[in-house]
């Protein structure tokens, strides 16, 4: 039981901190605009050149083979520096863990380095109009074709798809409910992409219409018919350690404390201090989880506790910011963050479902 960073970890932190202090861009346009998307890709290419875009990946794919603890250190420094949100997030945090586990050597060699350099930006395509949190109700299908498959159907709430070049998702190759789903990668070139405007008027989401789009066999991830199992593993990493690093919440909380202290209302400062304490709790908790993962323990259903905690903390923090700023929040990152935080309890499995999971699988209450 200690909180002591090794000399190597400390020097890694120092390197990251000093590089970011010099190179972090200020105020990129939103990544859900065309300009912003391009600017974010350029920034991530710059990170990649420094081997800082995916520090925990093996060197052959563009990383540094860093430990989970070092990755957490990187994230703390990244967000503390005020660096921009990651346009490659869906690929790096949702798809890549699946590629590492279920991808062929060729798939890994093809896609991972390009992802690390932001050459490819990946959109997730989980939901369908009739299936939100209930993935087993998916109806989009893949039909066998010569040397590959043809995709049919409609996906929605595909984040980043308005500007991304590739996507990943499940299509039904046979069977019902959880059975007969297959995990596909696909280029978006032949897919009809219909952007959906969000509350802030920007296009973070899109509908994807598939009308017989051909994908070769090399774009099937894992075995045919195993998509459900593979996606569950992905969903679990989506919910787990990698989706929301503590550094981000800590940076938000820390700025919130300053904002509240300047406002001079002790009640608001109390709420801010509490948020900061909770962000700290999430950071410390994550150190424990990281150690367990490094020791080979599975997190499993326990990751649902974290999902509920960070998503509701994020919402509390941004609600407080709105209380502090009122109208003045508009046009600042606080308002964008507020809109983003409102989605937190919804995506990656709604918090209603996460609480069911905690109750049933962690506590053992009846279904």
């Amino acid at each position: 039981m200690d909180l002591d960073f090794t000399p190597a970890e400390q020097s890694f932190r120092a390197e990251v901190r000093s590089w970011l202090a010099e190179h972090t861009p200020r105020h990129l346009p939103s990544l859900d605009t065309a300009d912003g998307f391009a600017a974010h890709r350029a920034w991530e290419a710059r990170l990649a050149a420094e081997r800082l875009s995916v520090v925990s990946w093996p060197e052959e794919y563009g990383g540094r083979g860093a430990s989970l603890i070092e990755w957490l250190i990187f994230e703390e420094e990244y967000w503390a520096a005020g660096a921009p949100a990651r346009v490659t997030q869906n690929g790096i945090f949702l798809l890549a863990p699946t590629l590492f586990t279920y991808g062929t050597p060729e798939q890994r060699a093809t896609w991972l380095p390009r992802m690390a350099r932001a050459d490819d930006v990946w959109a997730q395509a989980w939901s369908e109009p009739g299936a939100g949190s209930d993935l087993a109700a998916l109806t989009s299908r893949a039909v066998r074709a010569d040397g590959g498959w043809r995709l049919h159907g409609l996906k929605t709430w595909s984040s980043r798809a308005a500007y991304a070049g590739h996507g990943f998702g499940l299509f039904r190759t046979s069977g019902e409910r959880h059975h007969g789903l297959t995990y596909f990668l696909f280029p978006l070139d032949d897919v009809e992409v219909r952007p959906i405007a969000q509350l802030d008027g920007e296009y973070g989401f899109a509908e994807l219409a598939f009308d017989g789009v051909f994908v070769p066999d090399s774009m099937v991830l894992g075995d045919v018919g195993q998509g459900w199992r593979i996606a569950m593993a992905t969903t679990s990493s989506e919910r787990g350690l990698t989706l929301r690093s503590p550094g981000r919440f800590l940076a938000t909380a820390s700025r919130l404390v300053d904002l509240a202290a300047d406002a001079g209302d002790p009640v608001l400062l109390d709420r801010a201090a509490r948020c900061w304490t909770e962000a700290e709790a999430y950071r410390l908790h994550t150190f424990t989880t990281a150690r367990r993962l490094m020791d080979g323990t599975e997190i499993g259903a326990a990751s649902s506790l974290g999902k509920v905690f960070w998503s509701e903390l994020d919402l509390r923090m941004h609600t407080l910011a709105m209380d502090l700023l009122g109208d003045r929040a508009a046009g600042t990152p606080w308002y964008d963050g507020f809109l983003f935080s409102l989605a937190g309890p919804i995506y990656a499995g709604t918090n209603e479902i996460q609480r069911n999971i905690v109750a049933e699988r962690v506590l053992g209450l009846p279904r």
Partner: protein
Amino acid sequence: MNFTFTDDQADFGLVVRDVLAGCRDDRGAAAWQRLGTLGFFGMLVDDSRGGLGLRLADALPALEETGRAAMPGPVVDTAVAGALLLDGPELDKLAAGALRVAVADSASTAADADLADVIVAWPRVASRDAVSSQAPQLRVRLEPRPGIDPARPLFTVTLDGDTRELTGSAVTAWRAATVATAAQLIGAARHLLDTTVAYARERTQFGRAIGGFQAVKHRLADVAIAVEFAAPLVHRAALSYELPSGERDVSAAKAAANDAARLAAEAALQVHGAIGYTHELELRHWLTRVWSWSAAYGTSATHRARVRALVREVPRWP
């Protein structure tokens, strides 16, 4: 002692509801015109001057309906603040629905100022006649500034040159407008609750209507409870805003209405899921309006600080 609305008061609200249900546009011009015909904008103006001669409390059901409809335009600034502050021919025009007022806050920000004929920035007021001239005698300047609700744009207001002083009581008008905004928030919250309940009855997930899940039920029950117990504070403030306890009562009302409406907005978003998060559904009008109105005439934080400061200063007991 009859702390319920009379049939007349309730009926006026229902008429406003019917009018607003029939028309929607981005900045509310059509609704404005039709409410003007009803006499809505002169409802607080003496009947001797062609108004309806209502007290603020009588007007609450109608104001709540403008919130239920998320009606655009400077409704409260005109029908409440303007009606209590202006005089002479301007007031006559206002009562006829032919004059719009925008009120700037202490940070010189006014919503919908581009639509206004008269701009109030305590303690001064100016008509907007000169704005378009771009001449050196320019009396009003509007700088657009970022806002939360695209249908309720914000402007930084500068009044120069020969403005005139306000005649009515600024404090009274400000309090009345705060209560009226709180009433709009109650209306918006009721709309959000109704539409979310309707959605939860129809949308199925895991093979059943999501409104059958106890978590969804209890979340919406909590919204219903919050709205049910915020409304009486708004009603009371409409009766007491000119009394010694008025400042405290008005702040208690606005804070409670803000919080109930924000709870309704959050529940609506969560229950609608990703669908609620986008522009596709009408829901967005109410969400951004709730956030915008809950900042207008004071955030919850501001009003709670005031209640805290005043709670022992004015008599707490009947």
